[in-house]
């Protein structure tokens, strides 16, 4: 299937609508995703505060991009797991990311109130203080196992720190928890994580 760029599709549709030529909304166009609530670049100043220094710039970018991909691929209304011991039939709710633009805006406001141009322009320590205050205000007490929308900061942290990659970094070992690794070698201590 040819990947249609979102910008290209919207441009085409806009022109068609202007010309009055849009009749039935084609299925492929109806399935176009909404504009992303946050981007990797926009989140990097937050990631610099929240994610480990030892990840390095590239590592933090990759972790942030993974979070953005998670948001992009989220489906509202999907049946959730009701495996053994869990009999409630539930569906996933609205994307937690719906709240992120406002939360990011609030971070910018907090930074401006302290003399910075915006959150990204604030020094690291100021950014950290702003995030701490935001999490306290949002009453976030725990890292979520999956993003909840309570706050983008805890969601980004939860998404990263609960990942298999983060666990490997913690233990400095190539455990590969969420990957299919095969049985050979499983008796041995996991290899030291390559830097």
């Amino acid at each position: 299937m040819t990947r249609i760029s979102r910008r290209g599709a919207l441009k085409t549709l806009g022109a068609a609508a202007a010309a009055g030529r849009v009749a039935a909304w084609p299925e492929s166009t109806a399935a176009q995703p909404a504009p992303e609530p946050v981007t990797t670049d926009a989140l990097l100043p937050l990631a610099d505060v929240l994610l480990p220094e030892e990840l390095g710039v590239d590592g933090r970018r990759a972790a942030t991009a993974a979070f953005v991909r998670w948001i992009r691929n989220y489906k509202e209304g999907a049946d959730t797991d009701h495996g053994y011991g869990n009999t409630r039939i539930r569906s996933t709710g609205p994307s937690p990311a719906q709240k992120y633009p406002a939360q990011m805006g609030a971070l910018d406001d907090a930074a401006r109130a302290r003399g910075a141009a915006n959150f990204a322009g604030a020094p690291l320590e100021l950014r950290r203080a702003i995030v701490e205050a935001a999490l306290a205000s949002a009453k976030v007490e725990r890292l979520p196992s999956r993003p909840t929308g309570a706050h983008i900061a805890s969601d980004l942290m939860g998404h990263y720190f609960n990942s298999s990659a983060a666990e490997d970094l913690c233990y400095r070992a190539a455990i590969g928890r969420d990957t299919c690794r095969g049985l050979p070698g499983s008796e041995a201590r996991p290899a030291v994580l390559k830097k």
Partner: protein
Amino acid sequence: MTYECDVCVIGGGISAAMLSEKLTELRPGLKIIVVEAGERIFDFENRMQHRQRNLDYGENAWPRDFIEDQAAQGIISRTMAVGGSALHWGGVTNRFSDEDLTLHSRYGLATDWPIAWSDLETHYCEAERRLGVSGEPSPLAEDRMSSPYPMRAMPLSYNLRVLKGWADKSGIPFWSTPQAKNTRPYGGRSLCMRCNTCEICPTGARYSPDFTFKQLLAAKKIELHDRTLVRRLVTSADGKRVVSAQAVSRTGNGEPVEYRAKTFVVASGYCWSSHLLLLSASTQFPNGLANRSGLVGRYMTGHAFVGAQIELDATLYPGMNEQHSLISRMFFRCASSAPYVRHDLRVWESSAGRDPRLKDANGKLLVGDALMADWRSRTVRGAARVRAYYDVHPARDSALTLDAAHRNHYGDPLPVIHHVLDDATTGRAASTREHIVSVFTQLARAQNGRMFGVSEGNYLDHPSGGCRMGTDPATSVVDSHGRTHDHENLFVVGSPTLPTGGCTNATLTFVALTLRSAKQIVA
């Protein structure tokens, strides 16, 4: 629409799959129709994707595996689909022991099973071969097997090797838990790739009934009518035989469907088997079919459990193979002169207390490097999860009944299950817990262990019962082959026939019993 067949199997779970496979071998050409209320979800090619969606988003890996208005109070799984609960089971296949079959004669408790251990053991071997069980033999003489496991045991991960070294110091023998997971290609399925999500096995290494059904269907050995809900069984005028199963198609306009067969086998699990028999009440049988004893839906059972976490001086790496465990059968035995307590004992790697956290012990917020440092500091010592399934016995009033206040959209009352333990079990509850915690303590003492997080289950796991087997029609529903005492061509197979739930995972046992029933079903 009416269908005629030799054997009508009602239910499409693991018992139905194993039975169907064996019936086609015993009598090639036998016309078998398997009727399942839920949907066939034969999308193994999507399983890896579903697994990833489950990991990332908690989404259900088996879309459409439930029926919205076909639910019961007191069940522990909503899955109604071809494959049943075994679509997402953990695959553990430990045997019961002779003590489970002789509770009354040995201990004066509950009831004896109407089957000798040597007879059941033969069928355990058969079940292990058909499911594809990998395991190592128990070192205990009482657990002697007449045939070895078909595959070598799942190798112990590094974590389990370390934990075995620790557990061995307690004096309790442990070994690799037997599982229906391939350690080599077997049964047309791949070997285990250690994906760490056994309940959503993306490689097919863990047995699930959909594989059997697909093989049988490809060979045109059975018909499978899914999305067809059997609502009633109808007997002959004299009541001695079942002549038809009245069903409704859940697709399209819900047209009625009738199955006429020489033999009917109810293989609908611990909940829906008794439910169907009770629903089949008539003027002739006001209490439902096969229920002259009044015991359909009675003696609902399972096993209770106690678990704990143990922190110990060991470097462990959570996530190497989280669902594999060590097992001990040391406590399956209990001297008849001693206070009765029997339980299995399992040890898993654990990350309890070793997850990343947002705040430290003083409530200080952690981010970035500080969070990682705090996390690392808490992983210096490893953790193990321990659990004991222990033997409990049901009272007669441990029952599945029909709830007139909750009905499906066809108007059928839905089941409600309420477990009640017998007086003897209740009387020894405190001493049982004390014993199990003492065993955990014995384990914990090795390697400077610290026990934390002791918990008890608030439900009976691996539920079974409701159509218990026995030789006396006054005190049982079926004989040892699952033939109902009241209707000569009506069988019940699988978990409903267990008189007691044992103290370990029951799937292998009721599969073995089901396989044992096959010859009688086609006799």
